[in-house]
């Protein structure tokens, strides 16, 4: 238990340093408080926005778009990546398109998607799905290439047909890379979603909260919004990704914890 407390302390230390420096700067009088609010003001705004239900509503809408868009990207991306890794024809056909599409900044597609699918949920979800699929595809593809030939030979010798080879060998064998791809895809999804919420004139959403707050110089609300994004990201990392990894690739010795 002692080492657990120590590791929590170690993780919290850099944040404490930044918070202390922030407080010193905020109370020094060098900046106007409206532009550089103290942390207690941010915390108060966070509390009141939460109590009024405004912040939870923003957060819920953002999480809904994130999950909906990313779920599509994860499913389609893993499937496409594995098929491309396994079948030469699919690779020849899709790889050039993926290679060209991946480095284009997601936001560049935004106006097009908003015109096609409209402002609001549909447009932003489709955009999130499209943009965050790229890292998932590329890493799943790499994962299939990294599956050891000896596993495939052993499985085929023991009578595995193509379907079972997929399920019992290629999927678990590629999993370390697939998980990396999903993680990168989720980060991508966050970036594009917050940006497009600023553009897409949605009535609710953390991106919109942050962007809308500038009109009234509500820097405390901006910071509260940023803090919530950070908290949701941390929760997804700790509760979803790390658990998934610990239960699979770390337990199997395919990835260090």
């Amino acid at each position, binding site marked *: 238990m002692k080492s657990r407390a120590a590791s929590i302390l170690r993780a919290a230390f850099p944040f404490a340093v930044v918070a202390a420096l922030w407080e010193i700067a905020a109370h020094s009088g060098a900046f106007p408080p409206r532009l550089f609010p103290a942390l207690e003001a941010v915390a108060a705004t966070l509390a009141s926005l939460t109590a009024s239900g405004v912040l939870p509503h923003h957060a819920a809408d953002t999480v809904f778009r994130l999950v909906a868009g990313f779920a599509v990207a994860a499913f389609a991306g893993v499937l496409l990546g594995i098929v491309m890794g396994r079948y030469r024809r699919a690779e020849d056909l899709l790889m050039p398109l993926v290679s060209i599409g991946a480095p284009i900044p997601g936001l560049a597609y935004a106006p097009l998607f908003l015109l096609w699918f409209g402002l609001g949920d549909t447009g932003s979800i489709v955009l999130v799905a499209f943009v965050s699929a790229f890292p998932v595809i590329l890493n799943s593809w790499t994962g299939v290439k990294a599956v050891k030939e000896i*596993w495939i*030979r*052993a499985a085929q010798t023991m009578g*595995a047909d193509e379907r079972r080879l997929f399920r*019992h060998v290629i999927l*678990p*064998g590629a999993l370390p890379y697939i998980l990396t791809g999903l993680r990168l895809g989720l980060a991508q999804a966050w970036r594009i979603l917050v940006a497009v919420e600023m553009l897409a004139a949605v009535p609710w959403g953390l991106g919109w909260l942050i962007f809308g707050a500038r009109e009234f110089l509500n820097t405390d609300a901006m910071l509260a919004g940023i803090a919530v994004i950070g908290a949701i990201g941390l929760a997804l990392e700790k509760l979803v990704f790390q658990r998934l990894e610990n239960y699979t690739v770390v337990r*199997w010795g395919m990835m260090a914890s």
Partner: protein
Amino acid sequence: MIEVKNVTLEYGTSEGKVLAVDNASFSAKESEFLCLVGPSGCGKTTLLNMIAGFFPPTQGEIRVHGQAVNGQGLDRGIVFQDFAQLFPWRTALGNVAFGLEMKGVAKSERERIALEQLRLVKLEKFAGSFPHHLSGGMQQRVAIARALAYNPGVLLMDEPFAALDALTRDEMQRLLAEVWRATRKTVIYVTHNVAEAVYLADRVIVMTPHPGRIRAEVPVRLPRPRDPLSVEFLEHQKMLLRHLTQKEEGPS
């Protein structure tokens, strides 16, 4: 029963054609332990891979139990040199049960058989361990159990102990001799280690490289368990070494 008849394997490289195996013929009787011995490049692993069905010979024919080999089959089990052959995402038991699972054997039945196989290689206590928690020797024992679990008539082994330290290797050889006595599989065992071949084999096929050819067939009629320090054992070893180092005779 395995028959290898006039098997040749040729492959093209940027420097022209390479004759990996040149007109090799031999056979293994039911329950016979056959060793293929030779230095690297003599085509012993290539021959084993063709018997396994990973690729066909350029010329010639391979039959297992009277049937021409055409791809992989459950009539042959295979153990590789690489420890990484086990599936890291399956426990020892899960690895051993894999072939039975592919065959459609019910879960409780295949786990019973897999545990029995693990007992044969003295690893039943580690049934629930993942491969990365097992030593190299233990991983190779799991691989042997896995290759035996679905009860193939033939066991093909490609230098399974070559990457182990000398002490573990001795232990593994003793264990394999026991397993073979208990199961009476037909074994084709590839090695470059002459002492290992004399310890394990009923008959040793000596191969030499460039091109890969069968040089000699040496029966080992010593009683088991064999004593590697006995005079007869050392004489067999010497004989094999002589075949391996001798230059090709004939007009030049």
